[in-house]
């Protein structure tokens, strides 16, 4: 079984791109990934593409062939859809394909456009990641679902909305050349959001975040990297994916994310590492409570302690275990079907030492990426390590 290396990564800027179609954004990210990787595009043997709501946002189904031609690759191309875990699942399948010896080079990633839709349509689009009959028709929105989890967590373990969010006010982070701005008291006001200042989409949550972005990775076999003398020091050493019941109400725990617990266990076991070995993490903090649940599922904080991890400094940039040096989903944006790939792209750069925030983890050797779909009915975890 071959080792899998991340040969190169490419990202487009987070934010609103009203004048650019998905195919154009994806092509830009692919060009950057090929340039970073030093891999010839004709060597690509598969395209794994993550996207959740393109049929709604761009009225475009069957996007994988479109993105293959946009990226200039001729190979089997497949779209993966697992809500907000779409790109993470696409990358996992790419890792498995290379590891199985079915391909030496796979292009993997995702694209999502969201800000071109009005808030109510995005709300509806995101909500369809929940159970239509038993959640959406019962008034559950995406923020609403996480609010249900947040309240359940507070009931079980204490804490409240004044928990980890304090971190981002106090510690703005760098991402690329853009400064990640601290969140003002009362939260970020989104264009078109019909709510009073300081009041969020769904109590007890306080603010809503959505953005657009696309990212690409070039994954290669160790043999290919050696044969082509690639500078690809970061290996994907473990992957894990688990599925839970779709509706939150049907889960074993309302205040935990069991699928992520199991996905993390599987990824750690595959990599031969333990939670204690992790030096840096990118986690799926689509809402603040999601980071709390994620660090507990990854074993980076004990049950009920995740709420205090950021406040206590454990997971801040200068803490023992920095979480989301990329800024995280709420700070940088969450283009749902692309997010899982962007986490691995940024974690690769963090571990390579060429990320703007690499300095916080100069000696990091083991990184973990946690990507969740819906209310964590889907969870995918990747372990990345610096090889040699």
């Amino acid at each position, binding site marked *: 079984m071959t080792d899998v290396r991340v040969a190169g990564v490419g990202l487009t800027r987070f934010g609103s791109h009203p004048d650019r179609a998905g195919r154009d954004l994806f092509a830009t990210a692919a060009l950057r990934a090929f340039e970073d990787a030093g891999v010839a595009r004709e060597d690509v043997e598969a395209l794994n593409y993550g996207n959740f709501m393109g049929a709604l946002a761009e009225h475009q189904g069957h996007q994988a062939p479109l993105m293959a031609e946009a990226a200039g690759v001729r190979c089997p191309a497949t779209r993966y859809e697992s809500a907000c875990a779409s790109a993470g699942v696409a990358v996992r399948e790419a890792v498995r394909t290379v590891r199985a010896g079915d391909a030496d080079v796979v292009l993997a990633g995702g694209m999502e456009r969201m800000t071109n839709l009005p*808030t*109510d*349509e995005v*709300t*509806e689009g995101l*909500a369809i990641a929940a159970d*239509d*009959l*038993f*959640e*959406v*028709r*019962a*008034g*559950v*929105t995406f*923020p*609403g679902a996480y*609010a*249900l*989890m947040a*309240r*359940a967590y507070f*009931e079980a373990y204490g804490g409240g909305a004044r928990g980890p969010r304090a971190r981002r006010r106090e510690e703005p982070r760098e991402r690329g050349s853009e400064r990640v701005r601290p969140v003002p008291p009362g939260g970020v006001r989104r264009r078109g*959001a*019909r*709510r009073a200042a300081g*009041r*969020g*989409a*769904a*109590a*007890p*949550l306080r603010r*809503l975040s959505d953005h657009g972005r696309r990212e690409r990775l070039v994954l290669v076999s160790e043999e290919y990297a050696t044969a082509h003398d690639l500078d690809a020091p970061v290996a994907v050493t473990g992957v894990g994916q688990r599925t839970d*019941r779709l*509706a*939150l*109400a*049907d889960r074993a725990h*309302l205040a935990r994310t069991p699928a992520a617990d199991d996905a993390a266990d599987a990824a750690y076991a595959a990599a031969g590492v333990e939670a204690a070995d992790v030096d840096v993490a990118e986690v799926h903090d689509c809402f603040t409570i999601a980071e709390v649940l994620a660090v507990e599922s990854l074993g980076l904080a004990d049950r009920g302690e995740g709420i205090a991890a950021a406040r206590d400094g454990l997971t801040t940039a200068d803490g023992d275990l920095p979480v989301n040096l990329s800024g995280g989903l709420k700070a940088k944006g969450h283009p749902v079907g692309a997010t899982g790939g962007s986490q691995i792209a940024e974690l690769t750069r963090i571990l390579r030492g060429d990320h703007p925030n690499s300095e916080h983890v100069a000696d990091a050797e083991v990184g973990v990426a946690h990507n969740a779909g819906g209310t964590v009915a889907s969870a995918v975890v990747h372990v990345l390590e610096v090889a040699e």
Partner: protein
Amino acid sequence: MTDRNGEATENVDATEDDADAEDDPRTAGYDEWLDAIEAGDGYALVCPSGHGSLPPRRVCPECGSTTLAREPLSDAGTVETFTVVHVPSPQFADDAPYVTAVVDAGPTRVTGVVRSDDRGGRNG
């Protein structure tokens, strides 16, 4: 609601049962269940191992049993968590802000909108 006296269990083929009664196949089984809730006869599907789930369903999602019997939901469930939704999807545009809750209703949990003018939850 299935009468649980006498024959304790009855195989429920919700999808086929409801396809005749409802116009929209996407909500077959669900519409019937909603009607039962409104009539005060809410039920869950329960397998011999005691796993509760909601219709339409052919297989117990926990253990794969195809023997699913209707058992009544409790009249007064316990609210396990709730949220006040201020930014709704379009279909709830006229309702916001509203409360959505997850209620432990005996055989299974139920997610529903809580109205101020009724004592229980409403799903849908």
